[in-house]
């Protein structure tokens, strides 16, 4: 990485090589710089880690197009100080979804360690056996409809800008075209799988509330809090992994993220039960855009 240096930053939040997909990494001294990578394995959105990152002066951060969108929103919301960041933009041609890769590995019976190479299509190999996989079969679903793969805000840009595609919300329309009953069946099937591990909430850069509405303890407890207050704290939804509770959790998350979601796809990649969490956020996004277009037409 010739373009990055630690000259005017304390540390750089970036990616390092990992098995299958890159791991987050903090470069603190010059020896760490060569370890940094920025390629199709860097699926993790690093912006989330800014919330609890401690540094004195300035920090460098690697962002892809989608990460930059979430960073922009956080700056707008005053959660991140733009002046204390050195943003290193990485134009992105799509990142690998580890879960999709693992499914192929299991199916083909590959043994770890496995290396993935990008040659237009992807190649997975364990040394003995090599599998070629079509690009769209391994890319994270959000990459297939990415509207701005090139970061819109940056201080340094590494590589050539990449053209985005037009997002037509085909996946949302597909669900919308179903009848009410069919939609209910689809969602009760997928959402009853939810185990409420809250991985979708925790990976999300926009979910930064100190106390979440769905947490069992959502009232600040101080020495002056009375027993009555503790006993009567609002419990909006139960901890049980029941369909209705899961639905309300996901509905509330979609409501809280409406208009703020950067569509980085982290929630979907983090979900161990492969729930299409992104679909709900995208539905809200689509509706908001329709209103916006209508208002613009009205002048």
């Amino acid at each position, binding site marked *: 990485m010739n373009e990055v240096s630690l000259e005017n930053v304390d540390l750089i939040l970036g990616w390092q090589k*990992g*098995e299958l*997909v*890159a*791991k*987050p990494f*903090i470069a603190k001294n010059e020896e760490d710089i060569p370890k940094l990578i920025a390629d199709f394995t860097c699926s*993790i959105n690093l912006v*989330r*880690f800014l919330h609890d990152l401690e540094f004195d002066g300035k920090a460098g951060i690697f962002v892809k197009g989608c990460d930059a969108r979430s960073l922009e929103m956080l700056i707008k919301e005053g959660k991140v100080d733009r002046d204390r960041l050195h943003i290193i933009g990485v134009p992105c041609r799509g990142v690998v979804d*580890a*879960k999709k890769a*693992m499914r192929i*590995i*299991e199916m083909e*019976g*590959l*043994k*770890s360690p*496995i290396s993935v190479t990008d040659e237009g299509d992807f190649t997975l190999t364990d040394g003995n056996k090599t599998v070629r996989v079509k690009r769209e079969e391994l890319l994270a679903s959000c990459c297939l409809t990415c509207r701005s793969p090139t970061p819109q805000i940056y201080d340094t840009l590494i590589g050539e800008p990449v053209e985005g595609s037009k997002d037509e919300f085909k996946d949302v329309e597909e669900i919308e075209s179903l009848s009410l009953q069919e939609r209910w069946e689809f969602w009760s099937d997928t959402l009853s*799988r939810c*185990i*409420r*591990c*809250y*991985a979708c*909430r*925790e*990976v999300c850069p926009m979910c930064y509330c100190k106390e979440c509405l769905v*947490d*069992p*303890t959502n009232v600040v*407890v*101080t*020495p002056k*809090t009375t027993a009555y207050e*503790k006993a009567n704290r609002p*419990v909006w939804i*139960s*901890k*049980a*992994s*029941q369909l209705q509770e899961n639905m309300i959790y996901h509905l509330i998350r979609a409501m809280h993220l409406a208009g703020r979601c950067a569509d980085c796809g*982290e929630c979907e*990649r*983090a979900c*161990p*039960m*492969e729930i299409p969490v992104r679909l709900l956020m995208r539905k809200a996004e689509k509706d908001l855009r329709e209103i916006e277009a209508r208002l613009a037409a009205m002048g």
Partner: protein
Amino acid sequence: MEFLCSEEDIVNWLASKLEEYAVYIPSEYGFERASSSDELKLNFPLPAISIKSLFFPHSDVLMRFRGKEIVEALPDEEKKIVLTKACDANSLKVLDAVFLSEPVDPYYERRRKNTVIVTVECEQMCYGGFCKDIGIEPEGDVVIRRRGKSYCVEVRNSELLPEFEKFEACDEGAEETAKGTKENLLNIEWLEDAFESEVWDEVSRFCISCGVCTYLCPTCHCFDITDSGRVRIRTWDSCQFPYFTMHTSGYNPRPEKKHRLRNRIYHKFSYFPQRYGIVACVGCGRCVRMCPSRIDIRELVLRRD
């Protein structure tokens, strides 16, 4: 006793049990009850949710409130046959040690009581899994091993022996030699004086305090009890959540994620072996595969060349 069977023989045996037993077979996301013999097969995936969900479900109703009366909601003593893999079968040893030692947990005990575990040995480890590296061998009432085109069925539960006596005996010689060659790579001695080590800062730096590792883990068994409407429920809880150890006073003994991650490792590889004599990890690799931040437990507990 070991018997040589074809896949068809085993499926037929399971199918003959469908009426008397509830037969559970792993699917992609969890264990599902087989309703007909068509669903029975010996080639199944390792489900996302482990076997613990059958005996210790995510949300379990403990009791119901009827006016001033409290009604205990004990589960049925369902007769089950569970098809599983070596890792999940071994995790039951850990769960049994916790829930079946005094005081016995009646909810777990009732579900566990009439269960026949049928373990199918894996030919190779899953991606991210490390069961064979830490010496996990198939456990259960019936252990099925592949022998070329047929299967060697080891019946460990003597009550089931008569049902297999019609098959010819299987010669186990080749297996024994293969067993001896595998070295145990478990490396946990260093934990003894690493409690205050800086390792934990390093490892947990990118932990996001979600519950993926603990909820998917077949041996993690922490729970929370809450009231909800007119029922009292027991739900899974995770030591990785910041509120897990929060006291009523507002004091939190494990305030940072490094404390919580350290606790998970120590519980599995230090506290649990000290108390029950077994390591509370079966190497299924679910946490390795699914961690959103790619935290790899193998880097902490396995010897690497």
